[in-house]
């Protein structure tokens, strides 16, 4: 449905994206993941025909975005990072305007506006002025706008940014609901979002694609092992040596030390549960086992690992207990 080849965008001073290529199949939900300034928005803007690329081509449903921009734009519903709302208008007035410029026939105008309002659940505020709505509602009006004229492709740039947790949940539900009918590209820097909503993930950093895969495969690929967090009272170096000798253990890292207590991180080889052995080793040596906890690596860890490959070891002290950390923000 979408074919992006070797896309490059250079500005006078810097290169925003370089050699980005990917494909999105019909009906697929593709997640675009990357830190701020990685080139997500630039890529989306090129795909939607907002800006031309310096090099490379984008084809949507067989139409080239540069040569036949209107054909491409007819097929894409786009929610930019800041929802493009005329805030002085009423919700229904705004949607009618967008429907008109998208070429919805006069006869269908009311029906189409009613349909999208119903879809994103904003019918109850249809006569309100957009400026007076909460951020969550505004975001939904933005999504409603993208849905007008029922485009086969939806491009959503950071659809949950700036929303409160409940609103985020609502928007994600909405995305999942839309996923069946539309081919979707959505960008985010919040990782759970990708895990929850996408079939495939592209991780982009400094304008280049660093990884493309399903969330599950990505996890398996980078991880290769389970992680166990361990806190033990006893002589650190001796403990490390003993733990390393436990069968199935791939690596042991000392994270933190105080008052004779040491926090370790143990990586086991793939699909080996070494927790029993670890506990036994500690106890048998007469050290105090204060904590033992398994933590699978979250996409966030993978993300950090992929985007900060070199500095990883130095920076990661204390950052290793995975899963339950708040999403990367800012």
């Amino acid at each position: 449905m979408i074919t992006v080849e070797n896309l490059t965008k250079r500005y006078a001073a810097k290169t925003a994206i370089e050699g980005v290529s990917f494909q999105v199949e019909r009906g697929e939900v593709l997640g675009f993941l990357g830190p701020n300034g990685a080139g997500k928005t630039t890529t989306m803007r090129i795909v939607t025909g907002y800006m031309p690329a310096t090099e490379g081509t984008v084809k949507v449903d067989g139409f080239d975005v540069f040569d036949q921009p209107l054909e491409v734009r007819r097929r894409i519903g786009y929610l930019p990072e800041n929802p493009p709302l005329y805030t002085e208008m009423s919700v229904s007035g705004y949607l009618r305007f967008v429907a008109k410029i998208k070429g919805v026939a006069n006869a269908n105008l009311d029906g189409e506006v009613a349909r999208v309002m119903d879809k994103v659940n904003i019918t109850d505020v249809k006569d309100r002025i957009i400026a007076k709505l909460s951020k969550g509602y505004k975001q939904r009006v933005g999504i409603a706008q993208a849905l007008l004229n029922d485009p086969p492709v939806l491009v959503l740039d950071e659809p949950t940014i700036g929303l409160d947790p409940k609103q985020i949940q609502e928007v994600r539900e909405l995305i999942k609901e839309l996923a069946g009918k539309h081919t979707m590209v959505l960008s985010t820097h919040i990782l759970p979002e990708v895990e929850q909503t996408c079939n495939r993930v592209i991780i982009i950093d400094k304008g280049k694609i660093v990884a493309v895969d399903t969330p599950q495969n990505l996890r398996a690929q980078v991880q290769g092992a389970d992680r166990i967090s361990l806190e033990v009272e006893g002589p650190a170096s001796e403990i490390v040596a003993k733990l390393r000798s436990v069968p199935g253990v791939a690596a042991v890292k000392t994270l933190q030390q105080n008052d004779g207590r040491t926090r370790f991180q143990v990586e086991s080889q793939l699909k080996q549960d070494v927790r029993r052995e670890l506990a036994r080793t500690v106890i048998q040596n007469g050290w105090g086992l204060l904590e033992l906890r398994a933590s699978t690596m979250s996409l966030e860890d993978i993300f950090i690992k992929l985007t900060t490959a070199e500095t990883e070891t130095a920076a990661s002290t204390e950052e290793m207990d995975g899963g339950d950390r708040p999403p990367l923000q800012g």
Partner: protein
Amino acid sequence: MRNILAIVERELRTYFISPVAYVVLTIFVFLSGLFFQTILSQVMQYAMMQAMQGAQMGRGGMAIDMPGIISRQFLQTMSVILLFMIPMITMALFSEEKRRGTIELLLTAPITDFQVIIGKFLGAVAFFVILLVTTWIPMAVLYIYGHPASGPIFSAYLGLFLYGLALLALGLFISTLTENQIVSAVISFGAIMVLWLVDVVAQRAEAGTKDVLTYLSILSHLDDFMKGVLSTSHIIFYLSLMGFALFLTYRSIDSLRWRG
């Protein structure tokens, strides 16, 4: 065509949702009334003096085309006031879209840049026409109490309309250059002032330069219209200025896309 109309309609609506339309209309109507009254009393005084002089010299009063003089002076004054109003009309056209990010909606909708520009331009022109129509409030007085010749009045309005088209297009272009409406208004105002005052500079310039500068002066082309003379060269001047400004707008939007 329908999408152009949708943009025109939204532009007009926006004027009347924000206070801008009401402020501009109120000030304009107030000033036009004030100037009309002043001009009326001056012309009447002059006519009275003429009549008295005529009586003293033993001749009959000279015939003066009072409604003609009044309407010409009044519409000339209006052309100057409109100079000040036009930046208010055009300042937000693209700058607000850029500031709010709605430009991204317009430029990714299945419409051409040209349609967007024409839609916005016609929206501004529609509001300008409303301003022109309000000058019929004082002008009606002339028709009620006299019989002005309609020819020069018609040509004067045509001139003002064309002059409006040119300046609105210029303002539209300038609004694409910034995200700030105030900056947009001030630059438009400056540009319009230059086109106005170039006349003054022309007076003292040498022969060759003088012709060029006089030709560029935005108001000098109105004189013939005010006298009731329709000349193609003036019509072409305004239309080509409008066309040039719209072309610049188009280029500016295109470069906006490239720069992102």
